[in-house]
């Protein structure tokens, strides 16, 4: 697999506006007004705070179920996933599966590697346009 760059760090918050405002107020960071929003199909809403070449992605669960909701129940707020950009997601997924990794099917340019293949770390692969 050829990792291109760190795309973002996912941070789960209980309330998106409060979470982002905390970073804006306390540290002077600024969210990207052109990205983020409600993603009902995923049961989340999110916002992005760019820092250099990477982002902090703040995520709030809008559902009682799903990995983000489960994370909040188990651990509250905190760092949730690491996202790595790759050039060719489909090939990367194939290559990882050939190595024996469990990887979800790509969906809208994103695939998650099973925690069983990452020592427990939530790892997302992303292909940008």
């Amino acid at each position, binding site marked *: 697999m050829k990792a*291109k760059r*760190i795309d973002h760090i996912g941070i789960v*918050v209980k309330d998106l506006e409060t*979470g982002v405002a905390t970073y804006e107020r*306390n540290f*002077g960071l600024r969210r990207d007004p052109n990205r983020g929003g409600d993603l009902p199909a995923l049961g989340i809403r999110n916002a992005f705070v760019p820092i250099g070449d990477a982002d902090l992605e703040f995520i709030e669960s809008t559902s009682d179920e799903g990995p983000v909701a489960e994370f909040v129940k188990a651990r509250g707020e905190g760092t949730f996933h690491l996202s790595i950009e790759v050039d060719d997601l489909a090939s990367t997924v194939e290559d990882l599966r050939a*190595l024996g990794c469990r990887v979800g099917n790509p969906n809208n340019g994103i695939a998650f590697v099973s925690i069983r293949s990452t020592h427990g*770390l939530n790892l997302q692969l992303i292909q940008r346009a």
Partner: protein
Amino acid sequence: MAEFVTGSNRKGAKIGKDRKAAELIPRSPAKRERGQGVRAAHVDHIVIASNDSAATAKHFSETFGFEIKRTMSRPGTRAHMEFAKLQEVVLEFAGPGEVQPYDEVRARLGGFVLAVEDIEQAVAVVREAGFPCGDPHPAVQPGAKIASVKAGTGGVPFAFIQYNAIPAEGQA
């Protein structure tokens, strides 16, 4: 970044009854510019904590192609770190120097460190917001200073780092 992951005490820190209050008061003249915030340039490194950092580093290197550039064990903190770099961001695999017996290797995403232009300003901004922040102190990276933000981060441990913050010997 063992001192960040393990929470070890700062070297040379004076323990005094007024330290807690003193940490909330900027010690240097505020050089902060209004509206500039902490002036974070980029994410410097991300900590991946593991009960066996060498094993996790090896797994990530072999599976995901991260080249391990450096390893470090810190006497006194009993920590072992391995570092890989992806563009401008370092991945730090951190864990105990003496690995305890385990059933499986368990890793999780820890905190991260933001590279800032002026660490004194960044610390002052956080303290002005009313949150405790450790004093900048020498980092393991030569010439760099690091300071940990102790609260106000929504449960995310993070720190600031400024490179070239400590003049090399012989320089003013």
